[in-house]
């Protein structure tokens, strides 16, 4: 059973290299984004999340909505365990896969096979588990002998195929995505879509941040609306989408 609990968390970013007043006033003039708080003259801090609480259980498919800078990405990073909030309590129970950057850990100079190991390790797999996945990834990518060559010899479509295949080779208990991932040409796309849908179906908790309302409606059963670093609203996807479209 997977479980995520955020209990009144607050996340703020110190901006140490701020050229005092000039940058501070520049930041404050911005209309989008979280709250910028001046702690004192030399210390600027951006409050990315403010007093957020959220509970996700098995079967929850949460869509995250909000304008740029509303705190969606920061929230995803808290949910994936990367940001430990200085204030508030976080409980994450379950193996997480964060597909916010599918290429993370890959190395252009390394061969396809080496990259399978490198990328898998960052998905939380042991080297042995990663090696067990090689056959399946070979089949899915259809890259054949290219897997023996350095990745820099690949076309961008081929790199995407490989990254996608490795990243989706394991089913996590908690799947976190920033916009839906897509890969390659038309033929591969339908294959990739089927694979991704299978993955989403098997995972216990899905968290998906997106601006694509139709897709959120299709994939999610819940939604959270973010505004200025706060969760304004959580509930069934229909209701939240209706409110969001109403005032967006």
């Amino acid at each position: 059973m997977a479980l995520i609990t955020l209990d009144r968390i607050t996340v703020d970013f110190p901006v140490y290299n701020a050229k005092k007043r000039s940058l501070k006033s520049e930041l404050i003039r911005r209309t989008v984004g979280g709250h910028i708080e001046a702690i004192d003259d030399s210390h600027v801090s951006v409050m990315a999340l403010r007093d957020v609480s959220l509970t996700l259980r098995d079967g929850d498919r949460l869509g995250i909505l909000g304008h740029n800078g509303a705190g969606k990405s920061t929230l995803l990073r808290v949910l994936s365990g990367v940001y430990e909030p200085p204030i508030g309590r976080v409980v994450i129970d379950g193996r997480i896969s964060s597909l916010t950057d599918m290429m993370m850990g890959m190395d252009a100079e390394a061969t396809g096979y080496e990259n399978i190991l490198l990328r898998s390790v960052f998905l939380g797999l042991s080297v042995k588990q990663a090696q067990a996945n090689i056959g399946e990834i070979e089949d899915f990518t259809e890259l054949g002998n290219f897997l023996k060559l350095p990745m820099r010899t690949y076309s961008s479509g081929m790199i995407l195929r490989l990254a996608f295949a490795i990243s989706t080779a394991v089913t996590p208990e908690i799947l976190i995505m920033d916009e839906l991932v897509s890969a390659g040409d038309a033929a591969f796309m339908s294959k990739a879509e089927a694979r991704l849908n299978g993955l989403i179906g098997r995972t216990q908790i899905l968290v998906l941040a997106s601006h694509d309302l139709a897709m959120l409606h299709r994939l999610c059963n819940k939604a959270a609306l973010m505004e200025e670093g706060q969760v304004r609203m959580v509930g069934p996807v229909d209701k939240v989408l209706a409110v969001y479209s109403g005032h967006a």
Partner: protein
Amino acid sequence: MTEFDIGLSDSPDRGPMPKPPTMAQHLKLARRDVSVGLTDWRVWLLLGMNDIRQRYRRSRLGQFWITLAMAIQIGTLGFLYSYLFHLPVAQYLPYLGTSFVVWGLLSSIILESCSVFIAAEGYLRQVPMPKSIYVHRMLVRNVVTFLHNLVIIPPLYLFFHVPVSATQLLALAGILVLLLNGIWVGLFLGTLCARFRDMPQIMVSLVQIAFYLTPVMYRRVQLPSKWQGLFALNPFQSFLDIVREPMLGSPPPLIAWEISGLITIVGFAVTAVFFSRFRARIVYWL
């Protein structure tokens, strides 16, 4: 929050804001970071080896450039300084060679410690792996480099008739102490340098100065006798001596063991508090 809830999340009836974590909680999380980091040895081994492979990929000699570059440096400086110091080459060259190989390990652990977290920014911002993994990765990289440099030593000793003895095995203990210290140095400097970006530059200067103030190219006995006692307290010298002296066939002076032992204990104690306190903040500083 499963029901439809349209209220503001900071509505006043929710009581006071939660308190930040206590030091005990910080310490517990840091301990877990380090212990899980150690058990994930396949991960840091893979990353460290890939760093070496990446550095020398597409070059014909590959990682043996490490060996070659060091050999050229030792050869050139060995002949030049034996002339300048009026020392026989047969005596000076093995000493300088051993010094350089060990100093190379020591100094690059310190310098690369500064960038363990800065260089891992892409990873740290995406996956919640233990931070100590990036320190061990740096140590793997340096051990591999050291082993490549070590290749120079047997022919050097053979050619200049440095006697082989059981004392040389003591060098292994010295290397282990050196690497053990690499863990706290990596955690400490890595964290400090992630927060203060001037620190890496400061460390480059400090290590450069330490190189001149430590008997790496010269011997301590060449110094005026009133300074020798003071130089014996140099921690760089202690760590250098616990590896270099046994390699050359004599047990290291007791003071070298005492100082490096003391630094190991103090270093880990200070780092335990420092790293625990700031571990969670590192990713916010990147």
